[in-house]
C-alpha cells in the first residue's frame, strides 16, 4: 500500500516535469533558425506546396496555438507527422524505439552484471593485482567515449578478425520475425525463429559491448569502492566471527548493501544509454531511436524532435522511479524510515 502511494505520488509529480519539458522543447525547436518545411521539400518546391504543408502542420499559426494542437494530438496518441520520414511520428517511434531499447537492455545487462562482478572481485581482493587491473580498466572505460570503442571493435573484430557482423540487426537471407514487440531477439524467441534469434544476438554483440563499457567501468569503480569500505565494517567482522561461510558473507551481508550507490548510478546510466547510443547506432548502422533523434534535430524535424525529447523524458522519469523502488528494497533503513515517518 505504501509502495503504491509512493509510486502514485512520484507519477503525479512527473506530470509537471513532463509538461514543463514539452513546453521547453516545443519553444526551442521552433525558434531555431531555418524553415523546416522548405528544408524538407527542397529549395525548388513551389511556394504553394510549402505553404500547404505549413498549414497542415499549423506552422502559420501563433506558437501557443501550435502548442495547443500538438498537446491535444499528443494526448490522443498523435504526435504529428515527421517532415523527413513523411509518416506519423508514432510509427517512427514504434519502429525505432524498440531497436534502441533492445540494444540498451543488452548493454544494460552487460553493464550491470559485469560491472558489479568486476567491482565485487576488485573490492574483495583490494590492493592486489586483480584490484589494480580492474582499476586500470575502469579508468580507461570511464574516459573513453563509446564511439571510440565502437570504431575499435568494428575494425578489430569486424574488419581484421571478421568474427562479428558490422552493420544492421540481421543478416540478409535471415527471415525477419513478425514485429510483435519490435525487438528482433524477443520476437524471434516468441515465434521460435532460432536462426533469427542467433543472428540477431550475433549482430548485437559489438554495439552492445561498445555501449556498455563506459557504464560498466563506472559501476565497477563504485562497487569496488563501496565493497572495500564495507569490508572494514564491524558487522562483517562479526559475521565472519560467527563462522558464517565467506561466500555467504560476500553475497548476503556485503554485496546487497554495497549495491545501493551502484544501483542509483546504474539507473541513470541505463537511461542515458538511450540518448548516447547515437554514434554507436551510426557506426553499426543500427536503425535506432537515438540516431533518429539526432537526425531529427539536424533536419529541424519539429514533431520528431518534440516526440524524441518527450519519450526520453518519460524513460528517465520511469527509470528514476524504478531505481528508487529497488534502492528501497535493497536498504531496509529507507523502507523502515519511511514507515516510521508515518
Amino acid at each position, binding site marked *: 500500500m505504501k509502495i503504491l502511494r509512493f509510486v502514485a505520488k512520484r507519477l503525479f509529480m512527473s506530470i509537471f516535469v513532463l509538461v514543463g519539458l514539452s513546453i521547453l522543447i516545443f519553444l526551442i525547436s521552433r525558434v531555431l533558425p531555418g524553415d523546416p518545411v522548405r528544408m524538407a521539400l*527542397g529549395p525548388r518546391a513551389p511556394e504553394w506546396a510549402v505553404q500547404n504543408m505549413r498549414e497542415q502542420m499549423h506552422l502559420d499559426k501563433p506558437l501557443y496555438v501550435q502548442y495547443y494542437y500538438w498537446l491535444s494530438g499528443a494526448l490522443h496518441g498523435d504526435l504529428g507527422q515527421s517532415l523527413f*520520414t513523411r509518416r506519423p511520428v508514432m510509427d517512427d517511434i514504434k519502429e525505432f524505439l524498440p531497436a534502441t531499447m533492445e540494444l540498451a537492455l543488452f548493454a544494460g545487462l552487460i553493464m550491470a552484471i559485469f560491472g558489479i562482478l568486476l567491482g565485487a572481485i576488485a573490492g574483495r581482493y583490494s590492493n592486489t593485482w586483480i584490484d589494480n587491473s580492474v582499476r586500470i580498466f575502469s579508468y580507461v572505460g570511464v574516459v573513453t567515449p563509446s564511439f571510440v570503442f565502437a570504431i575499435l571493435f*568494428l575494425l578489430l573484430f*569486424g574488419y581484421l578478425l571478421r568474427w562479428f557482423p558490422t552493420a544492421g540487426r540481421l*543478416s540478409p537471407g535471415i527471415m525477419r520475425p513478425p514485429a510483435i514487440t519490435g525487438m528482433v531477439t524477443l520476437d524471434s524467441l516468441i515465434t521460435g525463429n532460432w536462426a533469427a534469434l542467433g543472428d540477431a*544476438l*550475433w549482430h548485437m554483440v559489438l554495439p552492445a559491448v561498445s555501449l556498455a563499457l563506459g557504464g560498466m567501468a563506472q559501476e565497477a569503480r563504485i562497487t569496488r569502492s563501496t565493497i572495500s569500505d564495507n569490508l572494514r565494517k564491524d558487522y562483517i567482522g562479526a559475521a565472519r566471527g560467527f563462522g558464517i561461510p565467506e561466500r555467504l558473507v560476500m553475497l548476503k551481508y556485503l554485496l546487497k548493501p554495497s549495491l545501493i550507490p551502484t544501483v542509483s548510478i546504474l539507473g541513470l546510466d541505463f537511461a542515458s544509454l538511450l540518448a548516447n547510443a547515437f554514434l554507436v547506432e551510426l557506426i553499426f548502422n543500427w536503425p535506432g531511436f537515438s540516431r533518429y533523434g539526432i537526425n531529427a534535430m539536424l533536419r529541424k524535424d519539429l514533431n520528431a524532435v518534440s516526440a524524441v525529447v518527450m519519450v526520453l523524458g518519460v524513460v528517465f522519469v520511469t527509470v528514476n522511479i524504478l531505481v528508487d523502488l529497488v534502492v528501497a528494497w535493497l536498504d531496509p533503513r529507507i523502507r523502515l524510515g519511511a514507515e516510521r515517518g508515518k
Partner: protein
Amino acid sequence: MRKVLVCVLLALAVTSVGLLALGDGERVLRVTFAWPTYIDPAVGSDFSSSSSLVNLYDTLVYPDVDGSPLPHVATHWETSDDGLVWTFYLRDDVKFHDGTPLTAEDVKFSMDRITTIGEGYGFLFVGRVTETEVVDDHTVRFHLSEPFGPFLTTLYRLYILNKDLVEANIKRPGPYGDMGDYGKEFLLTHDAGSGPYMVKEFRVEEELVMVKNPNYWLPLDPETPDEVRFIGTTEPATIRTMMARRELEISDQWQPEEALQALDNIEGVDIAAFSPGTEFYLMINTKKPPTDDIHFRRAMAWAMDYQTVVEHIFPGANQARGPVPQNLPGADPTVFQFHRDLNRAREELQKSKYHDQLDQYEVEFHWIAEVPAEEKVALLFMANMAEIGINVKVVKVPWMSVVEEMAQLETSPHIVSVFDSSHYPEAGSLLESRYHSSSAPTWEQNEWLLDPDLDAMIEDALATVDREERFQKYAEIQQYIVDLCPTIFLFEQVEKHAYQSAYVDWPTARGEVNPVMGYNMAARFIKVYPEKKQELLGG
C-alpha cells in the same frame, strides 16, 4: 557454476545458428547512400531517391550517356509547330509489377499526381504542363503553358505509376480533396512501377531491398543483380569494413579522401571518379560595392589560384569552364576560361573605380559550415586577393542561414561559395536557375544580376524546340555571362565511389557516365559475378 556454464554454452549454440546466413554465391548489388530515401515519384528528388526511382519505375524517354533522349515507354513523339503540344505514342507491351498493362491513363495519372502534390521533381512540371490528355490507350498528349524546348529531358523525371494500384491504396480524408493523401502513405514503402526491379522490403532510415522483375518488358542480362540493396550509411569505418568483407559493392560519394585511399588499397577495390555535372561557384554579388564593378570582379578572377584548388583542396576535380559543367548537354567547350595571372589582375584592378580606395572596402566571403573543405578555398581566396591588395573577410555560415541571407539583396554577402547542379540535363537548366532574375532571391543566385537582356536570351533559348538551335543559343548565353564575370567558375566536382572492380562491371566506372542524377545506379546495366567474388574470398 555448472548452471552458468550450461547457459553460456546454450547461448553460444543459439548464436551460432545465426551464422548460417546468406551465402556469398548470390548475385546481389549493395550500395550505400546518404539517407533519407523516398521511393514515391512525386516526393523523392535527391540522389538516393533518384537512384531508387530509376530502378523501380519506367519513363517515357530514357537518357543516353550524352544526355539525349532515347525512346523508352514511348516509341516516338511529335511536337506541334508552336511547341505547346507534345504527343507521345506508347509501347503496348509494358506491364506493371502486378501484371496490369501500362496505358496512357497511367501516364496522365502520374503527371496529374506530381503536379498536384508539387514536391520532389514536381517543380519541373508545375506551371508548365497545363493539361494531360489521353488520346487513346497508347497515346498521351501534354499541353504546355509556353513553348519549352527541354521538355523531353524533364520527362526523365516523370516516373509512371500504376493508377489502379495507387487509387486502391489512397487514404481518405487527406490534403488532396477527393484524392485523399494521393497514395503517399502507401508509396512510402511500396512501389507501383513497371521498372526492372521491385520493392521487396523498405525499412525507412535503414535499407531498401529490391528484387529483379522477372517479367520486365526489356531483356535483362542474367548477370545483372537478382537483388539490389540500397543501405543508408556513409560512416567511413563501416564502409571500409563492409568493403573488405565483400559485403558492399559500391560506396557512396561522401567518403573523405583518406577513406578513399584506404579503400583503394583493398585488393579488388578501385575508385570510380566521374563528373556528375555539379560545379562549384564563387558567386559574386554584382550590386554591392566594390564587387559591383566589373573590373574589380575580373581582377579577382585573374588572381584566383585555380590549380591549388583542383590539385590539393579537391584533388581530381577539373577547373570549370564557364557556368555550365562540360559534361552537361549544351555546354560550350570554347567559352573563355580564366587562369591565375597577377599582372593581368593588377591591370584590371587599376581600371576599377575602387582601385585607390581598396583599404576602405572589405570583401566578405561566406562559406558553408557543413562543407569543411570550403574553408580552405575561402582562405586561399583571401591569400590570393591579398597579393593584389584586396581585403577579404572570411565568414563561416550554416547552410540554413546562408539560404536566409541570400533571400534579400541587403543581406547577401559579396561572395558565397556553393555547389550547384542542373535540375534537368541541359545547360539551359543551370543558366536559368543560376542567372535568370527569377532565381535572384534563392540560394542558387547570389549575383543579383537582374539583367533583362540576359533574361530575354534565356527565355528565348528555352522556348526553342529545335535542339541544335537551342544549344547554339546556350553557347551565346554562356559567353555573355563569362564576359560579365559575375562568378568565379572554380571547378567541376568529381564524384568518387569505391567499388568492387574484381567482380562488379559498372559501366559508369568504365567511362559511360550518364549526366542525369541517379541513372548511373541503374542496376539493369551493372553486372555482378559471384564466382569471382568467391575467388577473392577464398584467396
